[in-house]
C-alpha cells in the first residue's frame, strides 16, 4: 500500500493545461499544416504533385491545391520540391466541417465551425462516442485511445467513448472502410439514436488514404455516412483530434475559425 502511494507521489499530476493553458510543446520535426509559397514555384514544375503517394496535390501554374483529406503528412513533396516551396508548420489544428474545406490552397484553412446551437445544447457538455475501426491500421485508434490517458483526460470535457452504440451520440470512424467492415459500420451507425454525429479520423477514413482505389475498400466513409467533422492526418496527433472535438462542440472560446498562417511573403 505504501509502495502504491509512493509511486503515486512520484508519478505526479500529468494532465495538460490545454485548452485553458498552453498546448503541450510538439517536437520540432512534427509535421503539422504544410505551408506552401507558390511564388517560389519554378514555371511548369509539377515535382510535388508527381511525388505525392496519394495524388493529393493538384498544381496548375501558381494555382496550388492540396487535398488534406488525402495527405499522409509524409515528406515526399518536401523532398521533391526543387525550390523549397513546401514546409511543414507546427500548426496542429486541422479539422474541418466539410470535405471541400480540406482542399487547401497552401495558405488559408477554414477550420471547423461549431455545431448549431440546438445540437450544442444537446451534445455540448456530454458527448458519448462509439468508435468503429473499419480497416484502420491501429495507429489512429492508438491515438484516440491516448485521449483517454491522464495526459489528455478527455472525460474532463464530458466526452467519453462508450461500448454500445445505443449509448452513443456519435460515431468516430477510422480506416478506409474495408468491404468486410461496411455492413458492421452501417449497422453500428443505425443503432445510434438520433440526433447523431459522425467524425472521420485520419486520411484513410476520409479518402481511403494509401489504400484508395483498392477494390477491397470504400475509400473512406464519405458517401457511406453523413460526416460532420473531418480530422485529417496520417494519423492525426492526439492534440489535432482533441482540437477537432472541442471545436465541433464550440468549447474553444471565441478564437478565429479561419486560420491564417503567419509568415507568408
Amino acid at each position, binding site marked *: 500500500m505504501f509502495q502504491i502511494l509512493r509511486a503515486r507521489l512520484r*508519478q505526479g499530476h500529468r494532465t495538460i493545461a490545454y485548452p485553458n493553458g498552453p498546448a503541450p510543446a510538439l*517536437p520540432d*520535426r512534427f509535421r503539422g499544416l504544410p505551408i506552401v509559397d507558390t511564388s517560389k514555384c519554378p514555371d511548369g514544375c509539377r515535382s510535388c504533385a508527381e511525388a505525392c503517394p496519394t495524388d493529393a496535390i493538384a498544381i496548375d501554374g501558381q494555382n496550388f491545391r492540396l487535398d488534406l483529406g488525402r495527405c499522409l503528412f509524409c515528406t515526399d513533396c518536401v523532398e521533391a520540391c526543387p525550390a523549397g516551396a513546401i514546409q511543414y508548420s507546427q500548426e496542429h489544428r486541422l479539422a474541418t466541417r466539410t470535405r471541400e474545406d480540406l482542399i487547401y490552397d497552401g495558405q488559408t484553412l477554414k477550420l471547423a465551425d461549431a455545431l448549431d446551437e440546438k445540437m450544442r445544447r444537446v451534445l455540448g457538455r456530454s458527448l458519448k462516442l462509439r468508435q*468503429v*475501426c473499419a480497416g*484502420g491500421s*491501429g495507429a489512429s485508434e492508438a491515438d484516440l485511445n491516448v485521449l483517454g490517458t491522464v495526459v489528455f483526460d478527455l472525460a474532463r470535457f464530458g466526452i467519453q467513448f462508450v461500448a454500445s452504440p445505443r449509448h452513443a451520440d456519435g460515431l468516430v470512424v477510422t480506416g478506409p472502410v474495408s*468491404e468486410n*467492415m461496411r455492413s458492421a459500420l452501417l449497422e453500428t451507425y443505425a443503432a445510434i439514436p438520433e440526433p447523431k454525429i459522425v467524425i472521420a479520423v485520419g486520411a484513410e477514413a476520409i479518402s481511403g*488514404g494509401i489504400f484508395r482505389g483498392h477494390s477491397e475498400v470504400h475509400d473512406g466513409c464519405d458517401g457511406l455516412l453523413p460526416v460532420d467533422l473531418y480530422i485529417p492526418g496520417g494519423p492525426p496527433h492526439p492534440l489535432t483530434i482533441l482540437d477537432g472535438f472541442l471545436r465541433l462542440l464550440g468549447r474553444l472560446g471565441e478564437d478565429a475559425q479561419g486560420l491564417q498562417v503567419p509568415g507568408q511573403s
Partner: protein
Amino acid sequence: MNERGFANLHNAQAIARAQVPKLSFEEFRPYILSAVAGRQRVAAFFGDAASSSEGVDLYAVLADSARGLLRVGSTTLDSNRFASLTPDCPQVHLFEREIAEQYGVCPEGHPWLKPVRFHASYRAGHDVWGRKPGEAPVIGITDFYRVEGEEIHEVAVGPVHAGIIEPGHFRFQCHGEQVFHLEVSLGYQHRGVERALMGSPTKRTIHMIESTVGDTTIGHATAYCQAIEGLASCQAPIRAEALRGIALELERLANHTGDLGALAGDVGFLPTASYCGRIRGDFLNLTALICGSRFGRGMIRPGGVGFDLDEERKQHCLKRLDAAYQDVANAAGLLWDSASVQARFDGTGGVARADCLALGMVGPAARACGAEHDVRHDFPAGIYRFAQVPVSTWQSGDVFARAFVRWLEIQRSVAFIRSQLRELPDGPVRSDVAALKPDHLVVSLVEGWRGEICHVALTDSQGRLARYKITDPSFHNWYALALALRDQQISDFPLCNKSFNLSYCGHDL
C-alpha cells in the same frame, strides 16, 4: 533428410529464383515435415502464380534457429489439389488456408479449411469453396465449430468490440463459465495489401508498408527495406542501421509499456494502468523527436533512414529515455509486488511449451513458453550483427510470463538504445538504391515487438515485385490465443487477449 533439399540463405540475402530448389511435391512435403520434426520452424509458406491460367507454385521458408540459417524451396502443383501438411505439421494450418483462399488450390485433408480473409480468389474461376466467379464471399459466413450437448452454450463477440480496438469475431463454446473452445474468425480488416504490392515498388509502396500494421510501422518498414536492399545489392550505412535499431527498440518500448498498462487495467489495478498509458506516450514522443511522427512514419527508407540525429537531439533523447525508464520501472514494479495482480496473472491462460513449438509461435508469447526464438539473436541483420540483445524468456507460459517477458525486454531495449546512442557511428544515413535484380528472391526477417516479421519478395524479369508475401507475427500466434483460453473462465478472455495483443490488420493485410 531427403536427397534433395532446400537452399540455405541468410536474412536479407537475395538469391536468383533459378537457384531456389524446385522439388516435386512428393519430395517437398516430406522435406518440410522432417525439417519441422528436427526443430526447424515454418517462417512462411505461400503460393504464387504468374496468371490465372498457369499452375500454382508453392514456396516454403524454414527458419533453422539453431544454425542461424533460413532454408527456401518450392514446388509446382500439377493440379488444383495437394495433400495438406497440416495433419502432420499443425503450424502450417493458417498458411494452407491462405493458399487455398488466394490461389484456389485445395489442401486435401486439412482439418479446418475455412476462409481466412473472405476475399475472392486471385485466380478467377478457381475457388476452393465452390463459389462462382463474381460471387463475392460474405465475411463471417463459414461453418463455425460447435460443441453440442446439455448446458453447452455459445457466445459470439464482434466484429465491433467494446472499446477502441480493431474488429474481429470470436466464438466461444462454453459450459457455464468454462470455455471449451474459442474460434477466432478474422478478415474484417482486409485491405488487399499483398495484391496491391504486386508490380511494386512505386511511390506508394513504402507508405503502404508503413500503414499495413500501424503500431509496427518501424518493424514492417525495416523488413521491407532490408528486402529491397538485398534485391538491389546495396547496404544502408552503419549509422542508418544503428538509427533503425534505435527506432525498432523504441517501438518495442512503447508497445510493451502500453501492454503492461492495459494488462493492469484488465485486472482492475489502476495505478499501473494509468501510469503506463502515459509512459507509452513518452516513448512514442521520443520517436516523434527523432522523425516527427509518433509511429515512426518517414523514419525507415530504402537505403537508410529519413532522419538523422544531431548531438543536441541525441543528448535530449538520452535524457528523456532515462526519465521514461525510471517511470516505467516504478509502474511495472507495482505489478510484481501486488498480490492482487499476481493472483490474477499466475496460471491464467497457459500455453504448454510443446504446443508453442507445434504451433510455431513467435515473439514474446513464444519466449514466455520458454522457446528461445528471437530474430535479433537467431538471424541478426543490420545493427544486430554488431550489437547483441540477450533473449528474454520465462517458463510458465501464462499471462504472468507474457507480462514479465515484456518487462525483461523493456530493460534490454533501454540498455540497447542507450549504448547505441552513446556510440552512434559517424557517416551518412542514406545510400543510393540501385534497380532490383530481376528474377530474384529474398527473405527478410525483423524481430518486431510482437515477434518475427517475415517478408518474402520475388522479382519478375523486369525487376518488379511479382509477389510480396508478408507474414506478421500475429499470423503465427492467433491460434495460440485459442489454446490459451481452453478450460479458462470466459471472463478471463480480455486478460488473455491483451496478454497476446495480436494484430488484426497484420493478420488480415
